[in-house]
């Protein structure tokens, strides 16, 4: 057997056409293609042979750094069949060149990625979020009210008596959530309420006007307290960071991560928001039934919010502002799932 290739001695960039001759007693000999002169010879086990990688050329390195390159992958595979040190890489090549196994690998990868995005990462984020001290959650959201005040909120136009009466309505219930939320009133973004990570709950004037009575306002308050209770913003931050790191780690470069991360931002946002909304609804409905408040109040106010926006499940704030930040923080109006949830509590 003769294997055609190129030889380079590793001292200069000069290359010569050469032929590799596997001889007896597991010896490998490289001879010049022109003169037939022996250039280098060694026992096969002293020659470092690169593993197969697609159809890329093979590198056979001799003791003094001399290298024989060849494109003849078939012949080299034959040569190293008995060598154990190359065994694992040849398994890799077998998998890579088998169409069925590659398809299985692709499906398995997609399934694992899907399962981690929808189950694994949210689960981990929840476990970690509740292990971290409250101060971490507060530091995540430090200053967010100031930022919102500068960017989107207007001061509330409600008079001081109205505010005082709203505060005395809500105060008895605030201690139901361990972070003891602070209540603020603003306007300028349509009917909405926000739970900020530092434990502030913001009501807009428009939402207050929309509510027919105090119990509807309490329903909203409990929903927002549900967001705080379940540490949704901290969990969201954790989830986003883990996904970013995961994509970089798995694909191995920052560049592709940038393209891929556009997609979770689009699709996962919707899914994660919905899961969080359902948790917050649950908290609200549980609190209402234990405080003896009519559950239909929750349904009424959510329906009113829904009919105002009426552009779909997830667009509560989209209808009034395009702020990404608000999307993260806003409550979402009623959905068919929400109605189903209420009937569960009735």
């Amino acid at each position, binding site marked *: 057997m003769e294997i055609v290739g190129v030889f380079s001695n590793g001292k200069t*960039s000069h290359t010569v056409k050469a032929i590799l001759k596997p001889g007896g007693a597991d010896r490998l000999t490289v001879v010049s293609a022109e003169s037939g002169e022996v250039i280098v010879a060694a026992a096969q086990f002293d020659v470092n042979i690169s593993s197969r990688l697609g*159809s890329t050329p093979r590198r056979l390195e001799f003791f003094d750094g001399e290298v024989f390159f060849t494109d003849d992958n078939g012949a080299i595979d034959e040569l190293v069949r008995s060598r154990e040190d190359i065994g694992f890489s040849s398994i890799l090549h077998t998998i890579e060149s088998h169409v069925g196994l590659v398809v299985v*690998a692709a499906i398995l*990868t997609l399934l694992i990625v899907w399962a981690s995005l929808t189950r694994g990462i949210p689960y981990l984020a929840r476990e970690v979020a509740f292990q971290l001290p409250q101060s971490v959650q507060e530091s995540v959201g430090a200053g967010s009210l100031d930022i919102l005040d500068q960017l989107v909120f207007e001061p509330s136009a409600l008079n001081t008596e109205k505010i005082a009466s709203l505060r005395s309505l809500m105060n008895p219930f605030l201690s139901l959530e361990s972070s003891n939320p602070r209540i603020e009133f603003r306007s300028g973004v349509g009917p909405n309420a926000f739970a900020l990570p530092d434990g502030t709950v913001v009501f807009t004037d428009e939402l207050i006007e929309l509510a027919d009575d105090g119990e509807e306002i309490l329903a909203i308050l409990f929903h927002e307290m549900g967001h705080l209770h379940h540490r949704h913003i901290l969990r969201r931050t954790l989830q986003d960071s883990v996904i970013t790191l995961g994509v970089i780690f798995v694909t*191995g470069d920052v560049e592709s991560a940038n*393209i891929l991360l556009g*997609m979770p931002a689009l699709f996962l946002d919707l899914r994660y928001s919905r899961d969080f909304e359902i948790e917050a609804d649950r908290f609200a409905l549980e609190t209402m039934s234990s405080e003896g408040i009519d559950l239909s109040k929750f349904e009424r106010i959510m329906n009113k919010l829904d009919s105002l926006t009426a552009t779909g499940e997830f667009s509560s704030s989209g209808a009034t502002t395009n702020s990404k930040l608000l999307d993260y923080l806003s409550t979402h109006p009623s959905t068919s799932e929400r109605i189903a949830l209420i009937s569960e509590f009735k």
Partner: protein
Amino acid sequence: MVVHKVDFRGDGSEYFRIWIVNVLLTIVTLGIYSAWATVRNNRYFYSNFYLGDSHFEYLADPITILKGRMVAIVVLVIYAVVSVLYPLAGLIFTLALIILFPYLIVRSLVFGRRMTSFRNIQFRFKGTYGGALMAFIIWPILGVLSLGLLFPLSLVKRNAFVIKNSAYGTTAFEFTATYKDYFLIILASFGLVLLAIIGSVMLSFVLPPIMAGFVIVLGIYATGFYAASRTHNLMFNTTFLNEHGFNSTVTAGGLFQVALINTLFIILTLGLYLPAAKVRSTKYVCSRLEFEAAGSLDDFVAAEKENASAIGEELGDALDLDIGLGI
């Protein structure tokens, strides 16, 4: 003068097979396999990169990379924990990382060059801490402080540091780009953005505002591709190895076409097109690159063997020090 074609002989479907097996093994080994995956990915790209009839090689040992990666992760975890629990200590840590940053860049370049070989001669890098400090921290700061006037010069200094300190065997690369070269590209980019803004203002009289806004976005994108193509060509066309030089003719339209197709397919295939996309863009850039040899390429001499550790490179990677340069 002999013109050698630069040729990327990789194949999208072949690389996909290698890539998907890498991704799966990386996931099931919780990331440990990523060191082997990196080596296999890099080997595939380097080995398919041909200058004339000879190919490049990537020689790194996965174990070296794994060690570097573990050091990087330990450092980052300590950093994250410390900065949450003791904000002041975190600040000191950040400062230490800034001081360490030029060192990491140098180590990363030393490792990357050492592990690259052509015709069995390795590349090398001999930049110093002081050089990296100037090129990557001091000059960019001066660029900002001078309100952008020195920004073109900071680009010259950065590329000069990376390229002039690189060598093929014992032969160092030369870099001849000037302040003016970069200044003109930046000036033209500003002009394009300005043109897009003026055009969109004029269009806003006849078109709905959303369309006019779209023109600005389009203009900024086009400028991005323009600047990327020109700086890419400039870097290659002002780089020399002895009397040998490059001729790169990448165009903004070409880059845009590649990016558009890639992004579209990546989204449609839920990311599975990623490896083929990398092959496509590499193929395009190589198809627009020639090596103009002034004579024989046989006489480059190897340097003494040195050991290079991967710690710098991996810590750099983990901290996202993407210096985005490579020959």
